[in-house]
């Protein structure tokens, strides 16, 4: 096993463990925004689209690079935008009562 693969594998396994740990019980209220937020994070695949675009050298590869860039950009840009919109609704000043419930989510 070469050193590079070993390093990547170690990073992979440890990141999985971090992922399991960081996601302990979360309130149902936040499950949909959380899913959307996690969805946005795998939009990091856009970095990969940059990498292959830099290597592309004929029409076939340009098309693939374009596709990867388009797909990944939709994922990352749309993902963060819609998550932010959803979460923005929780800390907006409340309409019905005038109570200044800054904390928003104690219950």
């Amino acid at each position, binding site marked *: 096993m070469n050193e590079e693969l070993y390093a*990547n594998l170690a990073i992979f396994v440890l990141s999985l463990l971090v992922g399991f740990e*960081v996601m302990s019980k979360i309130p149902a209220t936040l499950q949909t925004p959380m899913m959307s*937020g996690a969805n946005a994070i795998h939009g990091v695949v856009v970095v990969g689209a940059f990498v292959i675009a*830099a290597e592309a050298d004929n029409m076939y*590869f340009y098309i693939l690079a374009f596709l990867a860039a388009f*797909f990944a950009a*939709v994922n990352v*840009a749309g993902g963060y935008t819609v998550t932010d919109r959803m*979460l923005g609704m929780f800390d907006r000043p409340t309409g019905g009562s005038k109570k200044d419930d800054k904390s928003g989510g104690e219950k």
Partner: protein
Amino acid sequence: MSLLETCASLIYLISAVCYVIGVHMMRSPKTAKNGNLLSGLGMIMAVVMILIEIIADGKISFPGWIALAAGLILGIGYGVIKARKVPMTDVPQLVSLFNAVGGGAAATIGIFDYTRLAAGSGLALAFSIPVFLDVVIGGTTFSGSLIATGKLSGHVPGKPIIFPGSKLLNGLVVIAIIVAAVMMIGFPTNIWYIVLGLVASLIFGLLMTLPIGGADMPVVVSLLNAFTGLAVSFAGFVINNQILIIAGALVGAAGTILTLQMAEAMNRSVANIIAGGFGGGDEASSGAATDVPANITETSADDVGLQLAYAHNVMIVPGYGLAAAQAQHEVAELAKLLTDHDINVDYAIHPVAGRMPGHMNVLLADVNVPYDQMKQLDEANSMFENTDVSLVIGANDVTNPLARESGNAISGMPILDVDKSKSIVVIKRSMSTGYAGVQNPLFSDDKTNMFFSDAKKGLQDIIASTKTYLS
């Protein structure tokens, strides 16, 4: 390591930390928004860094720039416009669509590198194994998520689709994937095996999602989200980029836990859901009006208005029907009308009310329902005894007292104790059963009045009649 490489590694490390802390902060309503912003900041750092890297490297050709820029501009434009314009009721299918393209991007990267490198001499296992996993998982989530999007938006029938020979076809597809795996890894110079793997995985995604009913779709979307995380992680192995490996694995693991929690909230196991065939999707709940049993009491908007106008404590129990009819504005208007006349109004929100866990809170927050009026399960259940009128709008299974008994599809599911309130009004289109396909004895309870109507139309009529009694 050159200076640039060192900088890049450190920047990627910082952005990985941003994702982890961001996800951590998203677990609490207070910090969730900032958590998402922090994770977005990490993303911007990673993108700027890779941009600097490819500029400094200088290998990218002019058409390469065009392809990259065109893809990014079109993608960002499309994604942002979609995300800004989507009504909150349609968020689940949008998330699924974003998930599909994420999987598609990961698979495309795998195909790119494999076809580029396979032309040369043999590939190392360290490359061919992750590239296979990347393409197959990415392809599966791409087609599977598109079907999930279609089912949630109604373009694909929500009911489980099972056709003769689907088991056989499933078996063939799995064999094709295994053959593709062996050949891709054993004979990496022939690029056609990756095409076989891609096509088989696309069909596999379809076959996996089609038999699953619309009600279970949220759990499937979450599961496919975790899969995409893994596909992105393997894409990171393929191009030897650690930020992809870290962020992908993080989403893969966190998404798995989230999927299990969602399934638990819906009283279903992930294995059962994948086996499919449960529930009828949208069609079942909106289906033909079955015969109205003799022992139920029907009511009119006028009577409901009277009941509400003379109540002290009203509990609104919103369900899927409210989300489907997009009646959240009407419900908020009715609640405001009542609170303006000193009638206490609260909302009893079941964890899985709406399209997916937590979705109802988002819908109500969107129409400015105060957060302190939204009561979660336990708190709401302690309030029903003092509730004069429970107004159940398009909710069914989550109020079904049969869940307390054993031996039926919803046994053991936590429910809202609506039957403990002093009187109950149910707004529903027909007597048809909910997703679980179980009759609801609440509807024939002596205290219950049924108001058969579309949620939006029914609420408008109730608002009008309540106004006349309050003035």
